[in-house]
Structure formats: C-alpha cells, structure tokens
C-alpha cells in the first residue's frame, strides 16, 4: 500500500496544513471523530499526540490535554483501536507523535507493526537520537513503510541539518523558535532569516514549520518559507471551548485558518 504522506507531498507542495491534537482529548473516544472532521474541514496532514506523563518538549496546553486524556483512560492499545476503526474512511496522512519511552514499553516491533496495521504513515519521536534511530529503528520503519520526521531548531548546525535531511524519510519539522510548544508571539524578522537560511541549503526533504503557529496570519507567513506549517496548542485550545461541540469546534477553527489561503 502506498504511504499517504508520500502521496500528499506528490500532489501538494505549498500551504500544507498539519494539525496536531492529543488522542483522547477532550473526551476519550473523540480521536476518530476529530480525525474525520479534520479531513472534512480541509487539514492536509494530521498529527496524533500520544499522551505522555512527562512531555519534555511540550508547553502547558499540550501537557494539560495529555493529562486529561490519561485521566480519561487513554493508552496506546486504545489509540490503535480507535484509528483502525476509521482507517478505511481516511485519506489524510496520519502521523503519531510521542516520546520514546512509550514506544519502548509497548515494544518497538509491536508498536511499529500496530502503526502499519492501523494506517499510521509516519512518526515524530523528539527524544529519539539519530544514532539509535539508525541502529535500531530505521530498517524496521522502512520495512513497514512508515516515515520518520526529525526536528531542527535555530541552534541546529548546518552539518547536523544535512545529517537530519539524509535520515528523514517523512518531513523536516522546523522548530520556529527556541521554545516549547504553545507560545504564540507571531513571526519575527530573525525567524525569517533562519527560515531563509534553511531554504538556501537545498534540502531533499519537505519542510513544515511548527511551534508558535496559531492563526491564519502566522500560518500564511510560515507557508511562504516552507511547504506548510503545523498548528497544535491553538487547536487544542479551540477543542476545549465547548467539549460537546467537537465537529463545530474543528470546522470553525480550520475555517479560520484556511479562509485567507
């Protein structure tokens, strides 16, 4: 079966809207529903957060949503069940984002096989070191047709960016600022210089900008410097509004981002 992420990048190179949400939030069984609504509303790519007790790189909004999800009873077995149920109805690529300890405890091989079975196209594991990826994960992921996405930041050296470009099979996640997730200060000139520096490097991988992207304006600005952008915390805040109105919350939020594209 073709990888949906590869297919997306073949047909679309600009203004790719990647939406992150936390599985099991606001209600335990919202996961499948949110995915279908996101696809209907026009998201190009969906990043599913696997809630974790100690998410090192995440700000308060995602931390809290993860805690709510865990309190709701969310776990990985349930997540794979939820995605499997809807996988035949979904054409949007699905990426799972979480921390390496979750994968280790679930069992690396079992985790990757489950991803394949339930139609997951890619992974973001921010604390997976490049050398461990190459020695322990690369072949497994390739065999199962699952892509890996690595992060770069304003402090990542050029040499390392080339190394990350070589190893990325999904996209490069450009962390827009020295930040944890959920800050939204707009995009500065200094950040634009950083995006331009990356663009001059002629990387083979597709690039999406994330961290601090929260509305139509920051999304459109980011899209000028990459293939698209990622919105997480702002979407989670929108889901919190009225927790019974998931469909409306999703379509209103995505509508507000896409109206000016």
């Amino acid at each position, binding site marked *: 079966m073709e990888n949906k992420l590869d297919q997306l990048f073949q047909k679309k190179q600009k203004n790719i809207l990647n939406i992150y949400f936390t599985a099991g939030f606001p209600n335990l069984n919202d996961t499948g529903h949110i995915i279908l609504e996101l696809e209907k509303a026009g998201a190009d790519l969906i990043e599913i957060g696997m809630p974790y007790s100690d998410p*090192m790189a995440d700000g308060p909004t995602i931390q809290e949503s993860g805690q709510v999800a865990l309190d709701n009873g969310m776990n990985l077995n349930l997540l794979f069940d939820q995605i499997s149920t809807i996988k035949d109805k979904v054409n949007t690529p699905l990426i799972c984002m979480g921390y390496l300890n979750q994968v280790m405890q679930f069992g690396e091989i079992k985790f990757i096989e489950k991803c394949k079975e339930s139609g997951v196209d890619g992974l973001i594991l921010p604390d997976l*070191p490049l050398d461990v990826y190459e020695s322990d994960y690369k072949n497994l992921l390739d065999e199962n047709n699952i892509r890996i996405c690595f992060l770069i930041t304003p402090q990542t050296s050029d040499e390392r960016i080339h190394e990350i470009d070589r190893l990325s099979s999904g996209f490069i996640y450009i962390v827009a600022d020295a930040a944890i997730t959920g800050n939204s200060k707009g995009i500065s000139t200094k950040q634009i210089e950083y995006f331009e520096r990356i663009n001059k490097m002629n990387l083979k991988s597709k690039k999406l900008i994330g961290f601090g992207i929260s509305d139509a304006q920051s999304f459109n600005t980011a899209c000028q410097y990459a293939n698209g952008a990622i919105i997480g915390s702002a979407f989670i805040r929108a889901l919190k509004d009225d927790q019974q109105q998931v469909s409306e919350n999703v379509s209103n939020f995505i509508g507000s981002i896409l109206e000016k594209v």
Partner: protein
Amino acid sequence: MTYNINEKGYYGEFGGAFIPEMLYPNVDNLQKSYKEIMYQPDFQEEMKQLLKDYVGRPSPLYFAKRLSEKYKTQIYLKREDLNHTGSHKINNTIGQILLAKKLGKKRIIAETGAGQHGVATATVCALMGMECIVYMGSIDIERQAPNVSRMKMLGAKVIPATSGSQTLKDATNEAIRDWIQHPVETHYIIGSVVGPHPYPDMVARFQAVISEEMKAQLKEQTGNENPNAIIACVGGGSNAAGAFYHYLENEEVQFIAVEAAGHGIHSGESAATSVLGSKGIIHGSRTLLMQTEDGQIIEPYSLSAGLDYPGIGPMHANLIHAGRAEAVSVTDEEALEAAFVLTRMEGIIPALETAHAFAALEKMKFKTQDVVVINLSGRGDKDLATYKKHFETYGK
C-alpha cells in the same frame, strides 16, 4: 568489566542522551568539552581552592564510637553535612558554576527536591554574580520552607513546579523546559547523577572528591584505604556516586545503595526504584524508573523530598543490575527512627534523606572488625519541622 562510563556515554546498557533536538546543541557541546575543561590546570586550581577555603574541605571522616558499639562493627561517618550550605551538593555546584563561566553562560537554572541543591546553586551564583532560577515542586516548597527562604535570601528566584506530583520529577521537567526556551545564555546545573550524558558522569566526577578524601583518611585512621562497605542514600544518587567513585573497580569494597520505601515498598507510596522500576527513559537517560505498563512515569512518594525521584542515575542502575551494588529499601518510619538514634548517640542531626542510609544498619550484618563508611550527606536543620512532629514517637 568496568563500572565506569564508556566513550558513548553509557554504563553498560544504561545512560545515553535521549533528548529533543532543542537541547542537542548544549548537550553536545558539554559532551565534547566537559572533561577537557574540568581537567585544565587553572580550572582544577580554582576549584580546589574554593573547595578548601569556601566549602571547608576536606570534610572530616569521623569514627562513630557509640554507634559502632551499638551495631557491633566499625562505623565511620564521612561528614558532608559539615560542608558550607550543609550537604554534599555544593561539591557539584562549585564545579559546574566554574564550567558555566568557561562556557560563557550568564544565567543558571537548577531543579531541587529537598532544596539542598537549590541552596548550593543559589550560593555559587551569589558567589559568582550570576542570575539564578531554581525550579522546585509546590509540595516541596511547603515541606522544605527553610531552604526556600535561604535561596531567596541568596538572590535566587524560586519558581514552583505545579504539574504532576509537584515534586522533584516535575521540577526537573520545568527546568528542562526553561533550558529549551533559553538555549544560548543558560547553563543547567543538574544536581544529581541523572539526565542526559554527560551529566551523570560530570556530576559523579565533581562528587568524586568524597571518595578521594575517604581513601586518604581511612589509610591514615585504619591503615587501609579500603573499607569493607560504603553505605549511601540514593534518590538520583549523587552522594552515593561520589562515595563509590574511586572504589568502583575495587570489588572488595561492598556498595550499599539505600532507597526510600516511603510507606513500604508495595504500599503504592514508595520511591524504591530498583525494586519497583523497569528499564526506560527519564529525563534524557536510559535507566531504571517507576512506570506503568504503558510507559507513563509513576509519581513516587517518600517523606524525604530529596529521595522521591521515580528514576535512579544510570551508573547506579548498572551497579545494581550487575550485582556490584546492593539496594536496600528503608521506610519513612525506619528513617525517622534512625535519625533519632544518630542524634541521641552521636549528637549529629542528619538530613531526612541521609537518615535512610543509617536505617540500613538495622538490616545489614557486619563483622565486628569490618570498617563501614556511611556517607553523611547532609544535615537536618531543614527537616526540623518534620522531626518535631515525631518527638513523641521516637524522641524518648
């Protein structure tokens, strides 16, 4: 077999640096430079001078006569409680603040549980005129109030960690998030032998002065630089790492690592990581940690704020896993009782963390001629409010 770290930053299968990219440049820079910087002659000279004149080293090795009679063995106490600021923590903060200066950093962050590391960090920041921010769990801020006041008096900003169990684990998460957001000017002084490589090794090397002195002092006092056993309490494990360090490859010396069992190992309220933990990743290190089947980190419990950490330093994970160190668990009650025994028999009020090490004496069998060193890692001034509540039970 070596129990020291290998060139890739692992102790056996434990250790490494499992960190998000945002931390990579700082951690990578430290990995490449820490040994070179800390063994430069001028660095060593400045550090040794400060340890001698400012900290008050060497700390005495004291033969505890009455305690030895009670337990029918030869007990020596390595008096880290007599250091400036009242614990071993300052050995590491002196080293790391000098390192931060060499790296050109202007702002210091730290996590703290019992507040001893926070105070030691605030102290060296005052000494060097550097900005200091300390993250501390809300619950710990309450139960270790004297240390919070000390940090504030020293000019540090104490920020409460309000997520999760609101203790040491969460303070560490918040400090890591701060570092992610301030990658250029900030150095993170981790207080224990935890975190991504090179922290476990770097902190162990700064604490190694404990066993370096111990060797010379034992030689002088007993004629033999090797004791039969060394006992130390372990949260993350920095005082134990320092006390074990120069004996790591000397298997004649028995290591006893004492963990906090809280209300009992299987009570659901415990911090006995080596018994309850399994292999996984916490704070950037592959080690033993307390977690659910789903890999969610379990919130630990101990009456002592310095031992309720759900992980254990990778060096200790390896020592225990390989059978080189023996892990002993001590409950809140046993630690309280031991604190009163030491106080009434030797006139030394230990920190509640340290009291756990003394409680292990009740569980071990030593020969009369055995030389046993207990690392007296900290003094108990900060714990008086807790001790006071138990005067009736243990103080008679």
